């Protein structure tokens, strides 16, 4: 509890003790004004700040807030008490005091719960590094990570957080990445491995050369994203703030009408106007109408939802996206990097005139200047040192392949289009995968089959999407029909479109968006490489495996920190749970209020019921909102 809360707690306790004493002894006090004066002690002790705020509000033209409601209601009730006492009836000030007291109990609870959840959520996102160790003259020195320049060498001891992004130049260790990815299995790292800030070094001492400054490091970026998320408000949040804007004045005028109209009507038709009864009912009305339960629980639910999701390695950029995510019925995947691993491997070499090794030798050499994933996989498969000096006259024909000279021999490596282009007779392959045909001196020598592995969890991921109510899963890929078909059927995807260029993917997504109904939302899942336009065109863009990829973090609305496709359905489930709780709270709080308002107006509910309804609903709504944090098992 902070200082403010402690002070309020003490005031509540003192006022409660006074009230109990008064309840016991007030019958021995004969004069009503002494009783009134004594009851004013707990009233003012518990509620003086409410009165002051209401007064200040009136001066500044802020008429209709909770303080105003409470002040008018309690003063009104006291007034009714005085009126009855003067007329020789039973006076009761206890209700007014109790209303103020319980209102403050509610305020204290609310402020405590909100503070607690703030703390909980910031603990979930406990990746902010406090310091970095720099070696100065053989001595370790702690400095602010902000002051470390790019290219500095920092030392991270076991148990410490890695403060800045960089790569390891000395030492090996295991890293706990759970704060970043939600993944509990530690990651092995050694010299040369790139490491991200926010991970915790578990076993060995690491020396890291930094590649980014603090502002640009992963930990800062993520924290930034999470903090900004709360300021992108959802429709429900905007609805509630608009609602509160109109609701309170309406209630105040209704209360005024309730206090004035029935007595006037009664007087006109010649009955007893019962002024004090109707004023009392109007006060009850005001107390019930206090909007705090809804106003506090909605942002709290969203905040907890965002926090809970980030603890699972799912970063959602705003409550508005949380809302959209919950309505996702179509999931479109980009194949490479989401369903498949995106690391191409040579799986087979089909040769005729020369040996496997020779084909790989030529292919790897002619492709050596290229950074294309396919070229990389050829180099990996060759697994010997590549002699760049013997490679010359390289020409890359985009979308086809590469030709050039290797050790004086003309080498051509590319797809079937390339072979046709140069009029070389090639053999088709029955394997699904990317085929690299190789020709030497214009003569066909065989082909290399390269294929991309399907992720271990892809099938399960698609299944769990279906289980969580997704109508259709669609896969888009630039690969050929055969590869697409094989992957789609293995993983269980409903529909696939092959042979697409990046621009085709955008128009394909647009086409699907046009065909579905407005209510159902479409999510596009990509790995953040080359698919930024699609990510932003979809109703909601999900980038996965985004650790360290700035482009993906920029373009997407939802960022999955690791590359497990199962997180997609998890994200959808988290959002559904959150939205469900939001609606529960809206319906529950407004429902109870409405019922009580009616009961209050016709005189069934008294002030006690009113304040218990108000505070009780608030407490229940806040506790319900906190459930959004429990997302582990979803």
């Amino acid at each position, binding site marked *: 509890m902070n200082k403010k809360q402690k002070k309020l707690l003490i005031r509540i306790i003192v006022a409660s003790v006074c009230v109990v004493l008064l309840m016991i002894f007030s019958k021995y006090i004969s004069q009503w004004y002494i009783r009134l004066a004594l009851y004013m002690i707990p009233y003012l002790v518990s509620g003086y700040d409410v009165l002051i705020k209401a007064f200040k*509000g009136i001066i500044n033209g802020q008429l209709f807030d909770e303080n105003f409601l409470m002040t008018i209601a309690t003063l009104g009730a006291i007034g009714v008490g005085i009126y009855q006492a003067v007329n020789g009836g039973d006076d009761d000030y206890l209700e007014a005091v109790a209303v103020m007291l319980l209102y403050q109990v509610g305020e204290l609870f609310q402020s405590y719960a909100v503070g607690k959840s703030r703390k909980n959520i910031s603990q979930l996102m406990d990746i902010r590094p406090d310091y970095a160790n720099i070696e100065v003259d053989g001595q370790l020195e702690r400095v602010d990570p902000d002051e470390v320049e790019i290219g500095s060498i920092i030392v991270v001891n076991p148990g410490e957080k890695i403060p800045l992004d960089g790569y390891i130049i000395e030492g090996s260790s295991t890293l706990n990445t759970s704060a970043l990815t939600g993944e509990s299995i530690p990651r092995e790292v050694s010299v040369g491995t790139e490491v991200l800030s926010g991970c915790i070094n578990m076993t060995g001492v690491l020396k890291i050369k930094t590649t980014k400054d603090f502002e640009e490091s992963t930990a800062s970026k993520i924290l930034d994203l999470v903090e900004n998320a*709360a300021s992108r408000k959802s429709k429900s949040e905007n609805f509630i703030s608009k609602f509160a804007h109109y609701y309170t004045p309406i209630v105040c005028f209704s209360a005024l009408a309730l206090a004035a109209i029935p007595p006037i009507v009664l007087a006109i038709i010649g009955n007893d106007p019962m002024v004090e009864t109707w004023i009392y009912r109007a006060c009850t009305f005001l107390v019930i109408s206090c909007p705090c339960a809804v106003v506090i629980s909605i942002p709290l639910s969203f905040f907890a939802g965002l926090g809970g999701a980030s603890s699972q390695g799912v970063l959602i950029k705003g409550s508005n996206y949380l809302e959209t995510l919950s309505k996702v019925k179509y999931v479109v995947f980009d194949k490479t990097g989401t369903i498949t691993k995106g690391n191409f491997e040579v799986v087979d070499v089909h040769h005729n005139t020369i040996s496997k090794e020779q084909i790989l030798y030529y292919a790897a050499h002619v492709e050596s200047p290229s950074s294309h994933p396919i070229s990389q996989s050829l180099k990996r498969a060759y697994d010997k040192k590549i002699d760049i000096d013997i490679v010359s006259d390289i020409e890359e024909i985009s979308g086809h392949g590469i030709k050039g000279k290797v050790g004086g021999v003309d080498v051509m490596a590319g797809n079937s289009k390339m072979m046709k282009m140069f009029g070389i007779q090639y053999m088709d392959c029955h394997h699904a995968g990317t085929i690299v045909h190789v020709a030497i001196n214009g003569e066909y020598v065989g082909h290399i089959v390269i294929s991309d592995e399907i992720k271990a969890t892809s099938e399960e991921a698609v299944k769990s999407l279906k289980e969580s109510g997704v109508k259709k899963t669609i896969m888009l890929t630039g690969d050929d029909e055969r590869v697409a078909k094989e992957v789609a059927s293995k993983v269980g995807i409903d529909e696939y479109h092959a042979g697409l260029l990046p621009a085709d993917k955008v128009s394909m997504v647009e086409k699907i968006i046009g065909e579905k109904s407005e209510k159902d939302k479409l999510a596009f899942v990509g790995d953040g490489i080359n698919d930024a336009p699609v990510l932003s065109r979809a109703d909601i863009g999900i980038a996965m495996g985004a650790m360290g990829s700035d482009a993906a973090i920029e373009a997407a609305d939802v960022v999955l920190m690791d590359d497990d496709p199962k997180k997609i359905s998890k994200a959808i489930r988290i959002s559904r749970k959150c939205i469900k709780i939001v609606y529960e709270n809206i319906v529950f709080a407004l429902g109870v209020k409405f019922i009580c308002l009616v009961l209050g107006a016709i005189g069934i509910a008294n002030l006690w019921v009113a304040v218990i309804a108000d505070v009780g609903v608030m407490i229940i709504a806040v506790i319900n909102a906190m459930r959004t944090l429990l997302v582990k098992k979803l």
Partner: protein
Amino acid sequence: MKKTYNIDVDCANCAEKMQEAAKKTPGVKDAVVSFMTLKMKVEFEDGVDENAVMEQVRKNCKKVESDCEIFLK
């Protein structure tokens, strides 16, 4: 030009009021208050003196919610 300020306020409704007050202050293009993170994000109009604007924002916020605070760095 956008800047983020730490704030202190007790209730969600009050935060909303601060946001409205900040938005209405001359020199402020847009303002968003997040009650949950206790932060106010202010987008200034071009060529205004941010500190002077923020002083005014603070004053206006105090008017609508006497119990609030904006921490100007």
